[in-house]
């Protein structure tokens, strides 16, 4: 197990380097620069800026310098917010994204697993059809549609919740972003749970459990849930990574000062160090979540532990 974890951690490093290289290449391929604005700069000033940031050096030297900094986890300072280090910006915006993300994650898990289990246990009943129809809607409606609809209804019609503001947690301002963000995940988890549970409930060992005289609740909780939730586990790891690191659309919609919003700003500003920093951070989170899922799998399923 330990060897497995170490091996996986070693593979993580080249993966992140590849991701960063591609991101760096994409930034450089795009026309324009962080200092280009509406008005053209005088030649001399442009020359000064290029020298200051090393843009006059050959591209491979620039690349190697960037990479060597990143390998030392030094992402440098933002080009736009003078004097602010990238690490500082990430540290300030991560809690916002993480708060919304964890809440959305918990909501998606609790509601998704409950609804999915009920649908599986009462297969082909009206509960099953109703919840699966809702789940289909949840998956199909993009969050940039769902968000504004919720705002229109709860904020601009009923005046219950603020349309876009961040007052920290706990506050009313959390509710709409969390619901918008978790809807699709919730729906997907419900469908995964239902499918997983249906498969397990038909299996031989569930028949054995019933033949032992266990109650239906004991059969489901002790025998069925574990196997039924395995597909959910493999999905929720990466899902948690995406939710934690903020989502571009929802943070933009509700004007949350999180990672996602910073990422958009950085892209619009062509703020290369900040973009690379956020990309590196997100990929690291994603890869560690995948690793966590694999470890959790080993604990849940004794057959793959060996």
């Amino acid at each position, binding site marked *: 197990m330990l060897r497995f974890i170490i091996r996986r951690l070693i593979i993580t490093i080249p993966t992140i380097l590849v991701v960063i290289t591609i991101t760096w290449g994409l930034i450089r391929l795009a026309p324009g620069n962080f200092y280009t604005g509406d008005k053209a700069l005088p030649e001399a000033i442009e020359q000064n800026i290029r020298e200051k940031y090393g843009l006059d050096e050959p591209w491979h030297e620039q690349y190697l310098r960037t990479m060597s900094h990143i390998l030392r986890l030094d992402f440098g300072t933002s080009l736009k917010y003078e004097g602010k280090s990238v690490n500082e910006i990430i540290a300030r915006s991560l809690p916002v994204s993480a708060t919304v993300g964890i809440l959305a994650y918990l909501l998606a898990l609790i509601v998704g697993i409950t609804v999915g289990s009920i649908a599986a246990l009462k297969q082909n009943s009206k509960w099953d059809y109703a919840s699966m129809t809702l789940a289909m809607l949840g998956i199909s409606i993009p969050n940039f549609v769902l968000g504004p609809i919720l705002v229109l209804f709860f904020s601009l019609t009923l005046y219950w919740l603020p349309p876009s503001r961040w007052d920290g947690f706990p506050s009313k301002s959390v509710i709409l972003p969390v619901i918008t963000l978790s809807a699709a995940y919730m729906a997907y988890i419900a469908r995964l749970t239902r499918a997983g549970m249906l498969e397990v409930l038909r299996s031989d*060992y569930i028949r054995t459990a019933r033949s*032992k*005289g*266990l109650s239906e609740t004991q059969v489901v909780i002790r025998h069925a849930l574990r*196997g039924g939730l395995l597909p959910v586990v493999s999905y929720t790891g990466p899902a948690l990574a995406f939710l934690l690191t903020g989502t571009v659309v929802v943070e933009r919609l509700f004007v949350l000062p999180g990672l996602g919003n910073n990422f958009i700003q950085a892209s619009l500003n062509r703020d290369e160090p900040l973009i690379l920093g956020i990309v590196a951070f997100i990929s690291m989170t994603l890869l560690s979540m995948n690793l966590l899922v694999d470890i959790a799998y080993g604990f849940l399923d*004794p057959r793959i532990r060996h």
Partner: protein
Amino acid sequence: MSTGNGNLLEVRDLRTYFHTEDGTVKAVDGVTFNLRRGETLGIVGESGSGKSVTTLSIIRLIQSPPGQIVSGEVVFDGRDILRLTENEVRRIRGRRIAMIFQDPMTSLNPFMKISRQLMEMTRLHLGHSKAQAYAHAVKMLETVGIPDPRKRADDYPHEFSGGMRQRVMIGMALSCQPELLIADEPTTALDVTIQAQILELIKTLKQETGTSVILITHDLGVVAGMTDHLIVMYAGKVFEQAPTRELFAVPGNPYTKGLLRSVPDPTSARGTLYQIRGLPPDVAHLPPGCPFAPRCDRVEEICHREFPPFVRLTPDHSSLCHFAGEVYEESRLEREAISGQ
């Protein structure tokens, strides 16, 4: 405890139907039999003849929907199981009627230690504490011949071979000393040498505990040495019913005769092996007459037209056939001819 007549289980006119999109499948259609205390009853038949559905109906483990026990009585120790509440049935399952299933590879929970799966039984039914249940689980594993049971108890099912898993299943089923053990094709998924060991184990444990056994199988060789009584099922109906020796010696039904002739005889290596022609019928769309008529060697016009009567040949030998008497007589003559040689 006893009902007086010595019967532990009396099944009367049991009907279990499955309502599918393809029509109503009459998986079990009017099955009647008795099981005496301490006796072993064999149920034989091809796949889809209703053997498993019959026994699953006895402890009410039919998935509903689509399954439904339409009518009948299952009198176990004087009480009709079909009329009990769900809670009352649960107290019988595992405690008084235990089951083992065909595929030991999939019948144990792969996510749970063997010990926990065994402990579950006695903690539920006998009110054992954790320590008591664990000790009992180890003892049961020892009884069924698991080597080094103390160490193996905390292994997972995938760490056992197929034969060992079936031993674990048997140990689990017998852990509350049930009065009835239902073994649904317990050896079908195992290879031949292991089959013999498992059958021997069931036989020994049965003698030691006095448990009654219902043994379901499609292997006539298995039932011959194991059972006191036999039921032959076809298309959800009992085709023949007799003490095992009698049924093997003088079968009173063309289907049973066909089955017996299909068993390879190792003493005569020559000739082609007999086989019953055709396939088992689609029980959702049965013809009006005898369900076996399309495959029967001695079929006559009446067989296609009328459903056959259940003929009583001797007090404990009955056969579902228009010509049961004639078939029985033929068998007797054949028997005499062989013994006269």
